[in-house]
């Protein structure tokens, strides 16, 4: 069962990823608050909010920001369950390792004591809480950006923000080919799984995995050559041209005003 377990695990994690990307693309087309904004404005303001989250110094500010996040996701027609699932997918791993021990070992004033021994200190609880809320809040803004912005608009916004065009082109193509390669490797795993009856040692599985990776790598090399020739034959000169049709609307200016005011209030409340 061991061998099968490892194959199944890979197949299911690849499939989950493909699924989550498809549901993301559907959400981008919904008619919500954030979907209606200019992508450039969205990138700049949401990153500004992540910086504000980074600068916040108290639990209450971070809690208020989380309420703001939930409101935004509601106004953008992102279902609460779906949103929280996306956000909390990655938090447990790091938070469990770092935030939970901090509860118990940070020195400071006692908060919970059992039989005269200090178990949880006030500073420990505060640190763990700060860490947890800060990670949740920053991740939420990133998730909101991705859930409400089509990938192509995001790339166009990055280009407008003066990110080197070489990097933007690579980012765009990488995203495409990730799915092709994932599809191919998934077929390899499925093929292997359908031929597997007994079980293999983890060493044998690793050797198989190394061969699978090598094959994928050789295929990638071949693919890159073919893609390059295909690009050349379509007149590629070393630069990809794109149409930019950004238009700022009234709601973009209103949103910018809101974001600036909210950000300054949050920053100012650090000093209260």
């Amino acid at each position, binding site marked *: 069962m061991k061998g099968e377990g490892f194959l199944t695990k890979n197949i299911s994690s690849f499939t989950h990823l493909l699924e989550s990307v498809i549901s993301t693309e559907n959400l981008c087309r919904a008619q919500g608050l954030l979907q209606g904004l200019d992508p450039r404005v969205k990138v700049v303001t949401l990153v500004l909010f992540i910086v504000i989250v980074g600068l916040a110094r108290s639990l209450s500010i971070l809690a208020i920001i989380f309420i703001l996040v939930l409101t935004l996701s509601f106004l953008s027609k992102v279902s609460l369950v779906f949103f929280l699932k996306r956000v909390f997918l990655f938090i447990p791993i790091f938070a469990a390792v770092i935030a939970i021990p901090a509860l118990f070992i940070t020195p*400071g004033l006692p908060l919970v004591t059992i039989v005269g021994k200090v178990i949880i200190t006030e500073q420990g609880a505060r640190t763990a809480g700060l860490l947890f809320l800060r990670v949740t809040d920053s991740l939420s803004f990133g998730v909101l950006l991705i859930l409400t912005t089509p990938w192509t608009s995001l790339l166009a916004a990055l280009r407008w923000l003066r990110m080197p065009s070489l990097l933007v082109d690579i980012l765009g193509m990488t995203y495409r080919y990730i799915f092709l390669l994932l599809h191919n490797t998934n077929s390899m795993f499925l093929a292997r799984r359908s031929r597997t009856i007994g079980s293999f040692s983890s060493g044998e599985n690793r050797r198989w995995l190394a061969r699978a990776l090598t094959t994928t790598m050789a295929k990638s090399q071949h693919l890159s050559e073919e893609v390059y020739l295909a690009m050349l034959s379509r007149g590629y000169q070393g630069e990809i041209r794109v149409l930019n049709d950004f238009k700022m609307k009234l709601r973009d200016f209103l949103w910018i005003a809101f974001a600036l005011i909210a950000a300054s209030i949050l920053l100012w409340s650090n000093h209260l």
Partner: protein
Amino acid sequence: MHIPDGYLSPATCGTMYAVSVPFWYLAINRVRKVLTKRTVPVLAIFAAFSFVLMMFNVPIPGGTTAHAVGATLLAIVLGPWAAVLGISVALGIQALFFGDGGLLTFGANCFNMAIVMPLVGYFIYKVISSNSEATSPRRILGAVMGSYIGIVAASAAAGIELGIQPALFHAVNGTPLYAPYALNVALPAMLSAHLAVAGPIEAAVTGGVVAYLLRTHSSLIKADTPGKKEGKLWILWGALGLLALATPLGLLDSGTAWGEWGVDELQNIGLGFIPQGLQKFAGWWPAPLPDYGFPRMGAVIGYILSALVGIALVSFLLWVLGRWLNRKNLPKQEVPSKEESAG
């Protein structure tokens, strides 16, 4: 090792971006010169490959699985600078799309995994495998050692970034605002996890792929043209020479290496008793040069002589190992073997 937003202060994040930008700039220039118009398709597809590689669940003994990064592998196949860009792009998509690693910490994550890891890994690989044939087993040894040391170096960088947070950024009452553990906890924790678990996985995956590449697609691994010296080896020899010259520094320190106490020193540092097991085993290996000194000779001369003997011994052993590896490699004529292909 993907640090999420919230663990590093915005100031640290900004610094790490500033540190990474010159590397990116250099990498773009270098890669463009070599690949010219191919830059975009080649880097894009290998970045996609790197993303997929990071997603693979690698089976480890005990029935669970873990992930590899593949930074050194990419550096071996594409060259170090292309690897810097390819992995940065893969990390960018992970951070943007899947929340794996933050947006503000992106600079730090790239520094650890896309800059330190492939560059250190590739350097070690080069040192071990330089001037060898494309099919030499020294390449596999280089890949294994390079990827292992590369990931450990990257984890050390991450440990330092996390570890400096509580000292630099805390509230008035001492509450740490970001990652809560000081260097003396964060660094050993990161290092031990990567020395014991992530490092061996990375080494196994890199070594396995390079070994298979050598047999089936050796054209993907660039061979050094025989006879042509790499030219960079003098840097290594220079660095090693400087280190050797620094040996007398050890004389300045009156303390003992932590954890390397002898029986008499244990008593001196205030341990009231000597553990029984330690006493039993303390004398069973009579070192030829106890305390790095020759008997009946000045302490300073003895110390330096010991260093010379040590350097000579290690160099000789490595030379013998190199000869042996090369000999094993020479008569072997590559016959295209009919390996079962994966898939």
